[in-house]
């Protein structure tokens, strides 16, 4: 596999009247061809702003402060608007949470897909229309030939999201960014859409960045995962490593917050105390330190660097520093005390 996207130390802020909101603070990762990367985080963690920053969709008062986004060897940060527009929709495309706000309500589904195809490729309208039908069939819309004449309001939520996916893959993008694509959908429809995305990823070898707050969706779909909190990356791991052996207290906390009941037992949930940080005044050190059960002196003063745990897993937590009490022992003993 070869590298498709490399993000290095990306910072994005919003300059509001209340002050600078540091939405993303130092995002770095590597995505290879054909990989599915999950970005997990709660509201305000910076996961959506991160994805918008990648493709230059951050508007006033937001701004990329520093960092670099290398897509197929090309630097995207600072690229002129025209050039970005040629990349967006063609090489990188995006699906959003609410398909109704991303589809134009006064145009037919078909013509919206045709518009994207004709904007980026040199084919006739007739061919583009044929392709639109094929795409709708590919994403599982029955009677696609008739349905391309429908307006978005005539589609159900699941079908709209399918139409969005059809539009997104219409120019064979190398990268598909999906921002909470199934959050607005019911579980049975979510299962359909996730299966479709996995299918397309296999068939077309499209790389995918999947942004979600649902650990279940990550476990099911992704190859590797980034966990974000307060605008920073807390942990970066392969999906098996993350669930088998989470190395950041926040990741562990998230996992304990969701019920894992087996029959007959009711384990009390272990919530993370406190509330997410205010990004106008983020804590000076680790953003998770006010809520962390293992906070040390250094955590309050300084954000932790990424500590490498294995070749594919790293965590931004001072517990992995050699001066900290031995992490595994430490977490183990405190957990024993808890239970």
């Amino acid at each position: 596999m070869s590298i498709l996207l490399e993000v290095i130390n990306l910072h994005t802020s919003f300059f509001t009247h209340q002050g600078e909101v540091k939405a993303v603070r130092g995002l770095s990762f590597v995505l290879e061809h054909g990989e599915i990367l999950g970005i997990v985080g709660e509201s305000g963690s910076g996961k959506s702003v991160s994805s918008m920053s990648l493709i230059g969709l951050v508007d006033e008062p937001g701004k990329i402060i520093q960092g670099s986004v290398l897509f197929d060897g090309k630097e995207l940060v600072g690229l002129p608007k025209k050039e970005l527009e040629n990349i967006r929709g063609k090489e990188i495309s995006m699906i959003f949470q609410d398909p109704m706000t991303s589809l134009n309500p006064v145009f037919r589904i078909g013509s919206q897909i045709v518009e994207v195809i004709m904007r980026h490729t040199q084919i006739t309208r007739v061919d583009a229309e044929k392709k639109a039908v094929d795409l709708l069939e590919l994403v599982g819309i029955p009677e696609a030939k008739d349905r391309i004449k429908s307006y978005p309001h005539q589609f159900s939520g699941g079908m709209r999201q399918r139409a969005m996916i059809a539009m997104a893959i219409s120019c064979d993008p190398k990268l598909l960014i999906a921002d909470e694509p199934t959050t607005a959908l019911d579980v049975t429809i979510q299962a359909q859409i996730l299966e479709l995305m996995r299918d397309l990823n296999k068939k077309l070898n499209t790389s995918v960045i999947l942004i979600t707050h649902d650990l279940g969706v990550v476990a099911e779909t992704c190859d590797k995962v980034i966990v974000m909190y307060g605008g920073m990356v807390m942990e970066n791991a392969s999906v098996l490593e993350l669930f088998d052996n989470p190395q950041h207290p926040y990741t562990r906390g998230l996992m304990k917050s969701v019920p894992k009941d087996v029959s007959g037992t009711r384990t009390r949930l272990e919530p993370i105390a406190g509330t997410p940080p205010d990004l106008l005044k983020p804590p000076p050190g680790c953003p998770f330190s006010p809520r962390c059960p293992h906070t040390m002196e250094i955590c309050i003063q300084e954000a932790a660097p990424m500590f490498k745990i294995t070749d594919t897993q790293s965590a931004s937590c001072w517990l992995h520093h050699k001066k900290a009490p031995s992490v595994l022992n430490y977490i183990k003993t405190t957990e024993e005390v808890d239970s």
Partner: protein
Amino acid sequence: MSEQRIPLLEVRNLKKHFISGSKLTGRKVLAAVDGIDFVIYKGETFGLVGESGCGKTTAGRTICRLYNPTAGEIIFDGEDVAKLDERKLKSFRKRVQMIFQDPYASLNTRMTVTDIISEGLEANRMLSGEKEKTRIYELLDLVGLKREHASRYPHEFSGGQRQRIGIARTLAVEPELIICDEPISALDVSIQAQIVNMLEDLQTEFGLTYLFIAHDLSMVRHISDRIGVMYLGKMMEVADSDELYIHPYHPYTQSLLSSIPVPDPRENAKNKRIVLEGEIMSPINPKPGCRFAPRCRYAKDVCRSETPVLREISKDHTIACHLAEEINSGI
């Protein structure tokens, strides 16, 4: 559950239809809730699950008479709520309270926390003056808020904290039954667990009964003693929560449960998913027969012509499906 179960709420053949359209365009009947039956016992949590449009929220709202039922009985503590007049409703509503999904929309932005919480106390002439103040502090303590929060406005709080305010308001009038309509689905994962734990603690402390309406199936299993599964206005299956998750008999419940993404990559590889074809039908002018039949992979002619009734398939496990025995004979 204890051996002696006392029913607190009994819903019999409850219907809520909405009429839309005009004489010109033709009247349309939207059967949001179309004849459901269930019982909630004192001190338990009854989970009501289903996808959007299945009528679970309408059911909850009809039970506390935010909507007037089209037909059916709602027996609360021996009295039919469906027939109560305005005056009697007031004392009923003191005993049955509601927590709403959206903590941003359900609090009046122009009222302070004190005003919000005390509104119910004053409307019911329960307390006033110093006693009321003490009670508000007590309630704030109970839901994990601080006393200095009493004079603040809703916009100063986070989503989780607002939900706590909503819960304090609910508890103020000392209800017996609380209808929780998706109380955690607008909250972050780490905050959801805080609210769920709090609801559990409050239930133990005050012997509350919950009707917990939600679409997050893993959380519903966690909090509920018994669960009812709804689909397009009909109750499909009712059982103890473990029983339902281990032995789902209804084909809809089966596919619904298999659609839950499990936060465990190894488990997912083993899990056989039943992906449903198609989507939920429109509840306007529904056809006879089983509502789920058009999406059901087992459906036969009888399913399309006759509406199945809820019947007991094993102890405390009821299901509305013609083919239950046939489908599940292999299990």
